[in-house]
């Protein structure tokens, strides 16, 4: 059974190889399938989404920027719906759409040399409907931006993530942003240079993919700054990002790592064996904590480190379950909580509905189905990802 599954089970590696030859629709469907099976997590999700969107740009038929944005947005929302527990997908889609708009604007500005006309068109957009409350549909800094567009000639949108965060809100950018004033005039102005735009956008997406893949290394470069000799570092369910961070720190520092995890290991399995091996090769002592609550160990711990799945607008984050307990215990003992997160995990979403951010996992691992009376009558909630409020986090280390 097991070997057969490894042969037939689709994997991202296989899909990635076939991306270029396979029809676009097949690739999207395959990725949706992978996401629904939860075979991809975190960084891999982001990487896969960017790669698929690159194929969307490369393969789909589009005649102007609007067309392209619609295509990207459609594919993106399909992916996002397939994995609502991975906010990173939405981030990458927003990022790509922002990129397309930027590229379109830049190329138009360069070609046209008509910055004057551009600003005219820009100013037209609100002017056509002066009484329609544009600012209310676009909350936040938009009202500030419109006047600058009208007054200054050079219309420049920074590519930085900060800008993206400050402008976008989820409903806006994923669902309806291609309808807004920024894109519509551009498409009218530039129907011709589709080919050049395609190349530029694909280059841009390649950059995003590079950024995602390098994020861990860039974050790890802070390791020896944050970890001091003799520290006791508590890592909660270390993600690959955290593992790289620790291994990098191990090259320069002597410290002790306490690893906590909420899932008891299967018999004969050593939790985080690979990480422990790497660390002990560097002379770092690791202790696996078989514990639920972490308050008992906090007096000894110097800092708590864990990876984020997503960081929300308010500074709170989504992380593997148990992260809240770890952060709360650290907060109680005034120990710093360091969260590692690539900038692509920052989402412009509001986590006000906290409970909906939790991800529930398979409960059969904790309660046996053979135990009918239990399964039948008891409501079991096995939370695998939970929200951590911003006041419990001291530091975000990012790749910015």
């Amino acid at each position: 059974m097991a070997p057969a599954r490894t042969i037939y089970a689709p994997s991202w590696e296989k899909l990635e190889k076939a991306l270029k030859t396979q029809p676009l629709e097949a690739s999207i469907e395959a990725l949706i399938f992978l996401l629904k099976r939860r075979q991809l997590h975190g960084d891999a999700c982001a990487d896969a989404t960017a790669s698929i969107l690159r194929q969307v740009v490369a393969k789909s038929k589009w005649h102007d920027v609007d067309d392209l944005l619609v295509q990207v947005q459609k594919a993106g929302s399909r992916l996002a719906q397939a994995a609502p527990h991975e906010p990173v997908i939405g981030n990458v889609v927003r990022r790509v759409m922002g990129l397309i708009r930027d590229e379109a604007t830049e190329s138009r500005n360069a070609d046209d040399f008509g910055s004057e006309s551009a600003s005219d068109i820009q100013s037209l957009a609100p002017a056509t409907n002066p009484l329609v409350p544009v600012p209310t549909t676009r909350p936040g800094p938009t009202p500030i931006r419109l006047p600058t567009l009208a007054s200054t000639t050079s219309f420049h949108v920074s590519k930085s993530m900060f800008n993206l965060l400050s402008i976008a809100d989820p409903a806006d950018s994923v669902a309806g942003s291609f309808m807004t004033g920024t894109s519509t005039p551009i498409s009218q102005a530039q129907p011709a240079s589709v080919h050049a735009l395609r190349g530029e956008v694909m280059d841009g997406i390649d950059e995003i993919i590079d950024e995602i893949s390098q994020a861990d290394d860039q974050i790890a470069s802070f390791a020896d700054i944050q970890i001091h000799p003799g520290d006791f570092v508590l890592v909660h369910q270390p993600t690959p990002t955290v593992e790289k961070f620790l291994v990098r720190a191990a090259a320069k520092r002597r410290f002790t790592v306490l690893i906590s995890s909420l899932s008891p290991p299967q018999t004969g399995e050593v939790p985080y064996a690979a990480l422990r091996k790497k660390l002990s090769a560097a002379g770092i002592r690791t202790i696996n904590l078989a514990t639920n609550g972490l308050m008992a160990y906090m007096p000894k711990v110097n800092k708590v480190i864990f990876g984020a799945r997503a960081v929300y607008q308010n500074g709170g984050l989504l992380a593997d379950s148990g992260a809240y307990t770890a952060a709360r215990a650290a907060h109680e003992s005034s120990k710093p909580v360091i969260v590692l997160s690539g900038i692509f995990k920052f989402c412009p979403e509001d986590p006000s509905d906290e409970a909906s951010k939790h991800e529930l996992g398979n409960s059969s691992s904790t309660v046996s189905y053979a135990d009918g009376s239990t399964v039948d009558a008891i409501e079991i909630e096995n939370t695998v990802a939970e929200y951590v409020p911003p006041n419990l986090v001291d530091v975000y280390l990012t790749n910015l």
Partner: protein
Amino acid sequence: MATADSAPPQGQQGSDTPTPQTNAPATAPTNPPAQSQPQLTPAQLKAKAKAEKAARRAQVKEARAAAPPAPAAPSGADAKGAKGKGKQDGQQSQSKSGHAHRPSMAGRRPSLFKVEVDVRSTIPDCFSHISMAKRIQTSQADKDVHPAVLAVGQQMATFAIRDSIARLEATLLAFRKVIESYDTPKGNSLSRHFVPHVLNPQIEYLIECRPICFSMGNAIRLLKAKVNKFDIDTPEEEAKEGLLETIDLFIKERIELAEYMIARNAAERINQGDVILTYGRHRLVEKSFLRAKENGKDFAVCIIDDPFDRAGQDLAKALRRAGIPVFYSPNVGGLRHQVARSTSVLLGAEAMFANGSLQAPAGTADVAMAAADAGKNVTAVCETINFDRERVSVDALTYNEIDPERNGPESFRLMYDTTRPKYITGVITEYESGAGNSPTQAILTILRKQEDPTIA
């Protein structure tokens, strides 16, 4: 070093396999002294030990015959140990050090000595001050240890008897048998001889098996105080009668009645329509829920379990059988959500420190903090016998225990944590003052009001 790495699993097996052999003789003689022969002289004990040794040797031989190649080394070591046992007993009765690994034994039983060293060697330095229960072979115990106490010690070391009250009760019942079988030697008085020569070796053995809990400490203090009160001329029968009566009364008052009162008080505090959150499984919490249900209250219970223990599942089933709706969360994941949907929190405590800190199964503090953050009432249930008047603890590394089942190169686990008093709204005890529910800081007052000389 390669051998040292591979030793622990082997060692654990080594200590596992002999226990069935040694357990059988340990539990067997627990009954006879109570029923047929109320008193065992040291000579009789020695004879018994010899018989046990012979039986064990026969078993070892059988085992060797059954599986000659693999267990050759350990069984050989065991046989050696059995040979040297008689002499060791002699040594131990003289030396009151209470330490299991003596240099002389190290020479005799290389395998055993290694086991002990290895078990503690995986404990990280920073936690090395914390004690851990360990199995002591009954043959290694001091010969003055009563068979009933031997059995209780084994059960404690293997966590067959786990929580503080169960340990207290088992200890008291075993001491009862010790008293029944006690004969004051000629020229001695019970009030002068019993404690140093009979009771103390039992206590030392129990401590060696597993550090005693506060309730046991309190009870032992009570018992010793009672013995000391006897006049030197008190007839032996009268003194023994008095001690047995004290123990019986103690069990009745401080354990049975306390349980009833706490369950009653706690059940009164559960309201119609409540959702009560609890952590793991605690006897008193369970009793309180069932009691409230009997009283006709409709409420739901939200259980946060420890994935490394899973006792909460048994509680879930028990409550479900009683018709109480149950939400079950296998670990602290999603704790904020679970707390948000419950109306109050009811926690079981293992012990309580003089400063009002709560010692409870690891994870309790995290649950209490989350609940306090959300503005929920956090109530603890605890018998007053578990209160300590002298010891103060602000963090969990002051008084704690390492879980021997989870101790090894691959894992480490502390059994308890300490919840600070500010996160606990109140404690429900069997004592009626303040309707039995008092803030944790009032512990000393409760104890004083109780006017119990034993805890004073």
